[in-house]
């Protein structure tokens, strides 16, 4: 079964890099939705079937940490695997992110590190065929 993934980043360049990484990952990728900030991400999660979110932190309108807290408070999304992909370097903030998410990948990242974090986040679904 294909994985529907939500990519949340205000940088169009980073969204393209992530989309390319997903395309070359060998994982069964289905729909890739894009959001430019946390508020857009929450709107998409309310409407679409999403299996995994890749979430930046520093974004205008609503940042990733606030969005992540809302995802965890919402019954329909509280179990959604979320991998945070960010330049964040503050250790206390990274610890908070790790408490709420399934993984943290720091930018710049090697493609294999992002794929590895996704595989860990989705568990056994990585072995499913598209």
């Amino acid at each position: 079964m294909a994985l529907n993934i939500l990519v949340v980043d205000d940088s169009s360049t980073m969204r393209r890099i992530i989309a390319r990484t997903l395309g070359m990952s060998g994982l069964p990728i289905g729909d890739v939705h894009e959001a430019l900030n946390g508020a857009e991400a929450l709107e998409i999660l309310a409407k679409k079937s999403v299996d995994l979110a890749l979430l930046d932190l520093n974004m205008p309108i609503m940042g990733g940490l606030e969005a992540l807290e809302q995802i965890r408070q919402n019954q329909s999304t509280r179990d959604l695997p979320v991998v945070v992909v960010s330049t964040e370097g503050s250790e206390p903030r990274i610890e908070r992110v790790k408490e709420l998410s399934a993984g943290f990948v720091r930018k710049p990242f090697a493609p294999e590190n992002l794929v590895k974090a996704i595989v860990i986040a989705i568990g056994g679904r990585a072995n499913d065929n598209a």
Partner: protein
Amino acid sequence: MTTPDSTLAAVSARVLEELCFHWVDPDSSAHTGGIELACASVGFSGPWSGRMVVAIDKGLLSELAANLLGADETSEGDSTQALLELANVMCGNALPELDSVTSAFELSSPEIIDASSAQAAGSVVASAALDGGKIMIRLLRDPAS
């Protein structure tokens, strides 16, 4: 001896390598005369506030954008977006190393600025020139912070 300038140069070089597959030699004595530069700025706030300014030779920027996007050809818009993301990632990686890994900074969205603004005077925390002056990075502290 590690200085703020050498730390900024090392962080910037690492970001260029990992994000754009571009290996650079730090060159603090570089001259940029005659080079047409594209410039971006990222503001930040936290324990102190300021901005990072990144200026890149436009010809080199096109190459970096192609590497970053894994594309054979890129548009001017691609180059602009690549510069914005480069500035964002450089700033996010440099601040913890120049300040502290326990400090939390909020980065604003990067923006394109004029080359003349990139040369603006300010309280320079760190400065680095890479690749014979084709890439320049300055970290500036707001006077009031």
